[in-house]
Structure formats: structure tokens, C-alpha cells
């Protein structure tokens, strides 16, 4: 019987420091030639045997076939151990799991990409895919906020994103430390919506960040006239298996790991016990 709990070894081929606490790792399967088939928004379970396993979004573009990338923030036990790894070290990988962003329904449409903090990770692959297939999609506005300027991730790619036709990138931070030069917005990410030129009638929004932020973004977008079913959010819950077995990520009748993590806004609103739910 095939055992889906077994992880496959993958080697770290390069590490890029994004912020003090966040690094992007490029991984390549060691044992066999295998390309990871996935949609942006999906995640892998990454293991450090002996320490633990966690869910991490795949941040590279699916067109990048040789290897794949994960952007991981140091928050606890497993991520601390991952943080100590060096190029050449081996991690265990299984996946991909979950649903990705509904790219097909975005074809020909304008797109809002709205993220907070490390929530940009599951969207980065999407952005790069859009750039590679620029003609398939309409205008794209990336709105990204974080707490402080030095907590923004993927800064090395912003120039590339900005240079692509019909893509704009808006940034905002909650606070700017003294002596820091900052020419972009301040305050919450919803403020950036005022800068938008997209016609909400023919647009989709992909949102990922803290639940409270997604709640405000979704509300602002609907007020601007975006249909609820055109808003997609990515949720986070604790996961042990990624395969709808361990029960941890259950949110009402939904499993975040297999029914999500990407949901349409109306779906999430019908689920209890999250900040986007209708009754809260």
C-alpha cells in the first residue's frame, strides 16, 4: 500500500535571506528526477526528521520545473531548526497538498493581489506565473503591507514585478523606524485600495494574510463593488497530516488542507469560527 505519510528527501540548493526571520530555500528532490506539479497557493509538508513537520506554501512559479522554493519564517520549534540549515542539507518533503488559486477563472480578468506579512509567500508563485504568461491576464495590482519596512519579503523581485507591463506594486507599513527612508504608504493595507485603477466589475482578488486583515480587505473590496464570489482568501490552521486525516485544521465542515487553503469568500463566510465568518 502506498504510504502518503512518507517524506522524500530534497536538498537545499540555495538559501536567500529575505528578512531577519525569513529565508527562501530552493529545494530539489535528491533521489529521483521529479518535478513538482502544482498550482500556486498549494503547499508542501516539510519535515526535519526528529524535529517535526509543518505546512509551507510553495512560493516558486510552477513554470520553474527543475526545483521549487519555500519561504519560511522563524516562529518556533521546527522553523528554528530549519533556520539553522545550510546549503546541501536535506529536508523531507511530501505534497503538494490543498487547492491553489483559481488561475483559470482569472484568465482575461484584472487581478488584485493583496497580502500582509509572510502572506505574500503563497502569492509570489502566482505573481511570477502571471509575469511569465503576461498576456493571459488583465491589469494586476499588488498591494502588500507589513509591520515594518524591514519585514517585507521578496524585496529583490520588486523591480522585476514593477517592470512587467500593466503590473503595479503598492506597499505600506504600519510603522517606520526612525532614520529609515520610506517613500511608500503608511497604515493598513486597505488604505492602498484607494490607489486602485482596476474596474471591480471585471476583476478577481487573491488575498492572504492575517485573518483580521483579510476580513477588512474583503469588506472593502465588496464595498468597492467586487462580487463576493470573486474574492479568494487563503487560510491557515495547524496541520499534522495535510490529507484530511488528523482533524486539526477542520473549520466547521471544511478541511483547510484539502478543501482549502484557498477558499472563495462566500465559502469562508459560511464556515463558523473564523474572523471572516458571517456572524462575527
Amino acid at each position: 500500500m502506498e504510504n502518503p505519510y512518507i517524506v522524500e528527501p530534497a536538498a537545499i540548493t540555495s538559501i536567500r535571506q529575505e528578512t531577519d526571520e525569513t529565508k527562501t530555500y530552493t529545494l530539489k528532490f535528491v533521489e529521483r528526477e521529479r518535478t513538482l506539479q502544482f498550482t500556486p497557493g498549494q503547499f508542501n509538508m516539510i519535515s526535519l526528521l526528529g524535529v517535526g513537520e509543518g505546512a509551507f506554501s510553495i512560493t516558486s512559479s510552477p513554470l520553474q520545473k527543475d526545483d521549487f522554493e519555500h519561504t519560511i519564517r522563524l516562529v518556533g520549534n521546527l522553523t528554528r531548526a530549519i533556520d539553522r540549515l545550510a546549503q546541501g542539507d536535506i529536508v523531507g518533503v511530501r505534497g503538494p497538498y490543498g487547492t491553489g488559486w483559481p488561475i483559470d477563472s482569472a484568465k482575461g480578468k484584472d487581478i488584485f493581489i493583496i497580502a500582509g506579512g509572510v502572506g505574500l509567500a503563497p502569492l509570489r508563485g502566482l505573481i511570477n506565473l502571471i509575469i511569465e504568461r503576461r498576456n493571459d491576464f488583465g491589469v494586476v495590482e499588488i498591494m502588500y503591507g507589513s509591520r515594518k519596512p524591514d519585514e517585507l519579503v521578496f524585496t529583490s523581485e520588486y523591480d522585476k514585478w514593477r517592470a512587467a507591463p500593466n503590473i503595479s506594486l503598492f506597499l505600506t507599513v504600519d510603522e517606520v523606524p526612525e532614520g529609515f527612508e520610506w517613500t511608500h504608504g503608511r497604515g493598513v493595507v486597505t488604505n492602498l485600495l484607494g490607489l486602485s485603477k482596476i474596474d471591480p466589475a471585471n476583476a478577481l482578488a487573491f488575498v492572504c494574510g492575517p485573518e483580521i486583515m483579510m476580513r477588512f480587505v474583503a469588506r472593502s473590496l465588496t464595498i468597492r463593488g467586487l462580487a463576493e464570489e470573486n474574492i479568494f482568501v487563503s487560510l491557515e490552521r495547524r496541520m499534522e497530516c495535510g490529507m484530511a486525516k488528523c482533524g486539526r485544521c477542520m473549520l466547521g465542515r471544511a478541511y483547510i488542507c484539502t478543501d482549502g487553503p484557498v477558499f472563495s469568500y462566500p465559502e469562508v463566510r459560511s464556515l463558523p469560527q473564523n474572523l471572516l465568518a458571517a456572524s462575527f
Partner: protein
Amino acid sequence: MVKSTPRALKLENLNILIDAVSQKYRTYGPVAKDGENAWEEVKADGELSLGCAATMLPAKHILQPVRLDLYSFKSSGGFQIEEPGFDEKIALFGVSPCDVNAILALDRVFGGRFVDPYYWQRRENALIVASNCTESAEESFCTSWDTGPELYSDYDLLITELADGYLLEVGSQRGKVVVNGLNLPGATQEDLKEKASRLDAARAATKKRLPVPPDDLHQLFEERYDHPIWVPNAEVCFSCGNCTFSCPTCFCFDIRDEVKPSRKEGVRNLEWDSCQLLEFAEVAHHANFRRLRIDRFKHRTIHKLSWMKQQYGLTGCVGCGRCVRWCPSWPVRRGRITSLADPVEIIADMLEPPEKVEGVERPGGVIV
């Protein structure tokens, strides 16, 4: 030429069957332990204690052990993984109809798109000797779901106690192989009638019933998700998890790594877990999506009674009454002392008009 075995046979005493089964299978059954029944390995001279009285842990713990090594690993540059095999033939002897139905629900949980090999290796190797309930325990309400006292299918062998022995029905090829050599007489028409009347009596003796048709539950919980009665209920919940650990359809678990002293090898193992525990839904930085007791209490209740049906097509409660029995909290509801976890009582609570529950405030939302 082997004569084909009729479906219904007459069995004088259980030992004949236990002997036959335990020769081929490692046999588990409900045995008396500290005044209760528990699923344990049945030894040759062991006494089975059949009947409706639900065991402490459900038979599920034979199919998915409470603690289980997923695999062991060694690291040397990369890593090697070694999976434990499981090819032992096991028999579950004396599974009650509700528990068989619970196993069918677990089949769906551990099957589907990702098949859990640990459960299925055991499940596929397991001979199910079910046992109809000819008596009824105070806590159970299986008739409401039609998960008991009678089992209609999904068994290898099925026994029903009669006045002068047992009726033995064969439900599969595997079951047939076991009884073939026993030379049992066929059952008579009277035997079958006796079975029917005994099970009717058991049905009638099952007094506890859901106050609404099962199909209405989904709507009830949807509409009354914010019913104020949840608050006093959750207030007396210990969040101890007894209700979920004893439930035959609960399946949640935790995965943990252990290292050996060498630090170069270890095991990744699985242990049962429960949504009632605070840490169950905790993520990094101690954020918790179900920090409030009331959210956890609601989650278990509604998952059992409504969501699981939406997820798997089979309801998550089979009416065995274990949670009723093992919940350590006994509130007074409608003038009687009841078990807090009791699904029937909770549904009855939900049916009370919300305006009638006074003096309680709904704590706001989820704290993250």
C-alpha cells in the same frame, strides 16, 4: 465437494466459534475489566462479555492503535526511512452494530483521496464478527440512527443470542471459511423468528431517542449556531476530551517525532488527540483558533452530529452512548442530572427557544 454453507447457522456456545476464529486470527473482544468492558485480546480461557454495555474505548483502537509508530528514520547525510509492516490477521469478535457502523464511518475518513495505510492494513486484515444487541443500555440511542440493535450488512459473521444458543449468520466468503469446518446445523425458522422478536424487544427497550429526525440536525445547528444555551453548557465542560476519546467515530490525532539518544535516529509516531484540548488548534506564537472552551465544545458536538455527515456522508454519531457515560460533568438540565456530553440532551437544549435562556452573554468571536 464442499457443501455450501447456509447463511444462517445454529451455534450451541460461543467457545466453538472463538476457538475456530482464534486459531486463524489474533482475536480481540470485549472482556470484563475493573467492572466495565474493554476491548482486549481474548485469551483462550478468557471470557467475552457481550451485550449492549458499551466498552470503555471503542473497538477502533484495534484498527488505529492509540499510539503507533508511523516510521523510523536514520540520518546520515540524507535519511533512510523504515516503515513498520503489518500483516497480522486480526479478528474483532463481538463488535456491536453501532460499532460496526462507526467503523464504516472511519473507513471513509481513512480512505478517500489519500488512503491511510496504517488503518487499512489492519482493517483489511480484520475479520468482523459482529454481535446483535439483545438488550439495551441506558445510555444508548442507536435506534434513532438505525445503527442498532440490529446489523444488516458489513459483517463477516454475525451472532445473535438466543434462548438456547446463538444464531450465526455468514456475511462474507471470509466468514464462510471460518465456519465451514465446524459442521454446524442450519438455523430453523423458529430461530430466525426468535431473533426477530428478541431484536424487536431490544428496539423497544431503547428508550432514549433523538428529539428530532436526524435529517433535521444540519439545519438545527446551522440556524442555532449562536443559541445562548451553548454558554452554560460550555461553562461546565472540563475540556478533558473523554467524550472524544471514547467515541467510536472520532479520529483526530497528533504526529510527533522522537529522537533516540544517538540523535541520528528516531521515530515519527502518531497519538490520538482531541479537539476539546486547548492545544489542539494552537499555532505558532501561541495563537489559537479555538481558544474558547465554547468553540471547542461546539466543534465536537456539531462535528459529530452534523458536519461529519456533510464531510463523509455518514453521521459521526452512532448512538453508542460512550460519551454519555464517560463525561465527568453532570449538569442539571430540565430538572434532571444529565451527562454534559450527551448528544440527545444537547439537541434537546438546542430546541429550547433561545429567548428562554436568560442571563448569559455570548462571549465575542474567536480570539486569535
